[in-house]
């Protein structure tokens, strides 16, 4: 995969910011489980929330290769912040695919005014099984009235606008789902409990509760009943961001391990001299390199609009499994120090786990992949 000068230019800016301003405070915010407000504000100022906003709406609309490259850089530094940007982009993606011009102007205007977007699909009883979504949207005159509870919502409480999947006809299961956009300051949109997470603790995750939340009728995106199709189409591209992040995380873990193995002396020599360590490092790098190629290949296919869906799922599945394995091995290489919060490795292992779970669990990815294989 060729990294163009234009990509590198943007990447260098983000890298410089994260090195100077984020790396020094990551451990502190991770311990507190709090999102670093100043960092988020700076990143929005920088325009990181506008990667998937069309240029005609004052955004950047970078191609998916560039987006994957940026995901990789973010993943290197902190998967929590990376997740916040990834979800923001997913929400933009829904709007790009299915929103009309008026809706785009409205929705993207909120982002260019300095806000993030959120994506509300998951519910306490509807994770992988989207058909169990119980949040309802009932048409009442010129308004839809939303009721229900969404959980595990990234950017919950800080987003200026949310994409919300709700049922307009509970009797129809997935075929009754519809997609709306709801401004964060709508009456009846209540920010529920702040989730205390194992990892990605620099992202803000909350419940979002809808209590007779009224939105104008024109906030329905596309047609009623198409919500499931729209959501799947969105995730079918946006989850490649997870692939990119996972590669960045894995590579960071490897880089830390290489440094550590060269400096940690046991039995009179750095442990890098031990073949047991060397073979682990070699496997970690090989798997990560393969995951990187897969992620960029998937991005390339999206950019060319060629059958990308299977590759996006493979990228998300493989890269996140690799990140989990590499960070687990990373803790092993660091030994007792790897298990301590004083060293960076245990956080990476905690952060890696979610990559196998969110944006469609890796089991669901296998379902997607095999369905595409078998439907041909």
């Amino acid at each position: 995969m060729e990294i163009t000068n234009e990509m590198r230019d943007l990447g260098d800016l983000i890298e410089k910011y994260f090195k100077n301003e984020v790396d020094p405070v990551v451990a502190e915010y991770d311990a507190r489980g709090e999102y670093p407000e100043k960092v988020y504000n700076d990143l929005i100022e920088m325009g990181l929330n506008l990667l998937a906003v069309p240029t005609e709406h004052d955004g950047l609309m970078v191609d998916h290769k560039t987006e994957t490259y940026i995901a990789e850089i973010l993943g290197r530094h902190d998967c929590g912040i990376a997740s916040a940007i990834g979800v923001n982009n997913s929400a933009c993606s829904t709007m790009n695919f299915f929103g009309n011009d008026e809706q785009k102007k409205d929705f993207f205007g909120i982002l260019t005014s300095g806000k993030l977007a959120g994506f509300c699909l998951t519910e306490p009883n509807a994770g992988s099984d989207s058909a169990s979504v119980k949040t309802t949207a009932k048409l009442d005159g010129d308004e839809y009235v939303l009721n229900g509870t969404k959980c595990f919502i990234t950017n919950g409480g800080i987003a200026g606008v949310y994409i919300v999947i709700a049922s307009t006809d509970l009797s129809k299961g997935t075929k009754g789902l519809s997609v709306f956009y709801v401004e964060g300051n709508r009456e009846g949109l209540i920010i529920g409990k702040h989730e205390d997470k194992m990892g990605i603790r620099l992202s803000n995750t909350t419940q979002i509760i809808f209590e007779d939340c009224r939105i104008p009728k024109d906030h329905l995106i596309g047609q009623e009943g198409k919500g499931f199709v729209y959501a799947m189409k969105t995730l079918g591209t946006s989850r490649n961001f997870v692939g990119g992040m996972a590669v960045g995380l894995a590579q960071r873990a490897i880089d830390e391990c290489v440094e550590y193995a060269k400096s940690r002396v046991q039995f009179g020599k750095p442990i890098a001299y031990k073949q047991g360590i060397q073979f682990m490092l070699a496997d970690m790098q090989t798997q990560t390199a393969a995951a990187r190629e897969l992620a960029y290949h998937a991005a390339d296919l999206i950019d060319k609009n060629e059958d990308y869906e299977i590759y996006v799922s493979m990228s998300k599945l493989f890269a996140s499994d690799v990140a989990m394995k590499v960070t687990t091995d990373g803790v092993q290489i660091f030994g007792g120090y790897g298990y301590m919060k004083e060293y960076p490795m245990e956080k990476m292992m905690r952060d890696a786990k979610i990559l196998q779970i969110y944006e469609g669990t890796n089991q669901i990815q296998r379902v997607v992949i095999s369905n595409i294989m078998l439907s041909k």
Partner: protein
Amino acid sequence: MNILVCIKQVPDTTEIKINPETNTLMREGVPSIVNTFDSYALELGVRLKEEHGGKVTVMSMGPEQAKAALKECLSVGADEAYLLSDRAFGGSDTLATSFILANFAKQLENEEGKFDLILCGKQAIDGDTGQVGPEMAEHLGIAQVTYATDIKAEGDKTLVKRENDQGYDWIEVLSPAVITVTKSDFEPRYATLKSKIAANKAEIHVLNSKSINIDVEKCGLKGSPTKVKKSYTPKKENNGIIIKEETASASVQTLMRLIADKKVI
């Protein structure tokens, strides 16, 4: 305000190594950056523009690759960028460099209008001479202030906060003036992704000795009275130690113990 900022592309000295045999900088593979003090000068210039309106023009002398440094400047608030690039300029010492820059600054006024201020970094982090700014002022016959950390424009007056050994002075200076800038209280801003993309697409005006119509006898090696006889790395003498315990009294105790250990007292 119409402001000209002079910048230099330098190797990132935090990542540079010195060739032990030739005692010269090993520039291969070292990333290039905008000289740190020049970044502060540019930030000051852009802040003045934001407060009072006007324009910030940046110029640099160097090889074609210095365009990257100028693009960096465009991404953090400069409006126009000029690069002086010519083999005849190669090997210029500070006198020749300041001659070329001053000459060009004068010509540039035909395009960009009279400059109220010409800002430079106090020195480049690779050569460390600190001479080019002051020499430009002499070539141009205008006022100069060095080691500035802040600039305020009030009506016709320009006030410059100049660092000195004891603290600082506020100096009033007549425009036009050359002001060299040191590390300020504020950090240079980060670019935005959008300004990066725009800067990438922006045109950098590249000019050579012919297009600026300059006496080449006074440029480059020919115009440089400075001759480098030898360069070497000064010997590092690690005689000093710094004691910094949590409290002053703990520091004193450590110090006394060290002195006692050496059997000095």
